[in-house]
């Protein structure tokens, strides 16, 4: 199991385009990935659940991945979030 705690700095939070890129990146991996925002959590591969987490700018999220490719998945999502959703895995159409 791998875990990442990070703050969403993007202006629109984890919404619309960032949420879309986040979910499509998560879907590249076989691991079970969940996003936690305080008490609430969502399956990182379910766009509606991620949107309903309603993560705003400046909020901290915890991302947990379980599975064989958990390390790669967390690394990829970290790059995505920390680059302000600019560095996207090439397998995801932008």
């Amino acid at each position: 199991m791998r875990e990442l705690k990070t703050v969403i700095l993007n202006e629109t939070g984890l919404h619309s385009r960032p949420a879309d890129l986040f979910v499509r990146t998560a879907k590249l991996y076989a691991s079970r990935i969940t996003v936690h925002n305080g008490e609430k959590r969502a399956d990182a591969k379910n766009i509606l659940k991620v949107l309903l987490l309603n993560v705003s700018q400046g909020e901290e999220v915890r991302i947990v991945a379980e599975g064989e490719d958990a390390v790669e998945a967390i690394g990829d999502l970290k790059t995505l979030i920390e680059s302000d959703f600019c560095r996207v895995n090439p397998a995801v159409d932008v």
Partner: protein
Amino acid sequence: MKTTGNELRGIVASPGIATGRAFVYVKPRIPHADNRTEDPAREIRRLKAAVAESVGDLQRLTRRMQERGEDAFVHILRAQQTIAEDESVFDEVATLVREDWLPAEAAVGRVFEQYTEMFNQLRDRDYNKARSADVMDVYKRIVGKLLGLTDTELIGLDSGTIVVAEDLLPSDTAMMDFSRVAALVTERGGVTGHVAIIANTYGIPAAVGVAGVTTHASSGDRMVVDASCGEEALVLVNPDAESERHVAVRRRRLEHHARDLQQYRGMDPITRDGHRIILSANVGSTAELEPARVQGAGSVGLYRTEFLFLKAPVLPDEDAQYEAYRAAAEAFPGSFVIVRTLDVGGDKRIPGISMEQEDNPFLGNRALRLCLARPDLFRTQLRAILRAAVHGDVRIMFPMVGGVPELEEALDVLARTGAELQAEGIECRVDLPVGAMIEVPAAVWVAGELARRVSFLSIGTNDLTQYLTATDRINSAVWEYHRIFDPSLFRAMEMVVAGAHANGAWVGVCGELGGNPLAIPLLIGLGVDELSMSPRAIAEATWLLRTGTYREMQALAEEVLKQDDHRAIRSLLEQFLEKHYTGSGEGRDPQRPCESDDA
């Protein structure tokens, strides 16, 4: 005119003649969940196919928007695709089909309604309203496929398409490629609704209130829209050769008239006896600025800011708005650009702004009222305008001022916003001229008192007519009562002009009437100082001005103010044009196409 075949009549919302192929736009309706299926496995197969087709559509649309460089739409469509592909949503729907024996349509409906409900309950409602609109769009697309509907979107039209619909809302037309649209025809909608505004903006003929057109016409039918003469539009479905020839002759004549008028573009807008008028353009985006200048507009009399909000996937922030207003200021150096603060509500709803469902939205929380209730929205916009004002002669206009209290409140917010920018050390101009729109009848009687507090008044004839005559302007059932030449309107204008001039303010007209050739001499005769109109009406307005005299127009206004019936007013206006604008005159007189028989 003699015509045969399938002939329908409606109201001209934007003038012109077009021939093309019909595209009957269908909006899927939410199906009732009261029936049950006997074959859940079959329903799940149908569901799978519908989802796959929807995803395919979205991919195709994404490519098209990429080609057009519409990045904002690309992002929306990509997000919608991710929603459509979501496996857990699919599983939820499939479970409902299996366990509750629901048909696929109803199961999709139930699941998506739950989600939109959840979005609507989140905090930060504006933001999530837009997301819930995305979810609804995906849902409608999948349901449309399940119901076997085609033609459920206005993207990817063939060129020369005549778009036929029950009604078109801003959300329907946001992604429409206007360069491929030959005309718009709707069953509902009025002469001053959304369809009229966008059609005039893009110079596309439009007929509204055409009862039965969505049932009489099918996609692919040949269609003729003749909106060239007066207020009645003629729509022909699969016309015979003779009527098509007839229309072709009229169309050539109209084009000839338009060509003749082009010589007046950019000429000084002054009457033969030396009375000068300001001719301005109504615009709604940065893309419309250059065409407006080319058409001869000297200034922008109405910048409709709501379109900035409509096109963006998220509410445009202060910087995005600042850039847009700055572009307008810089496109018209040495002349003014009047930015109207957000005018939403009524028939204009914006996905990113949550509005309560109201029984009477036109009498509800709209325009300035909404802005005063939403200081966050209002302040952001005012800050952007004050910052842009550094780059030119930017002015502010508040829509739907009903009286002194809300005008004072708006002016107070404006002053505080200016002080706030200055305290932050941000470059801005705080002394810019401010105006109030006169569109609520109550404002007519206090026009002088309003004028004392501002630099100008601008009469919004669309809404003022709607409120004076108590007719919902998008309800074609009451069209005959929505009289655009109603005596009350011109008597109201007389009061507004008197009140403004007595208090040192000038008066403009920025509704559709301002660009109506029949009305222009009258408006000038009533003492209006500025007319703001669709850019393409400016050449004709210049011709009307330069060919006539102020003295004659004042006499016309005097005569009109004595009338008690809009029909009498219309015939006075028609006689005026016939008398002064045909036959010999200054320069080459373009012959007006309506005033002669078809040869």
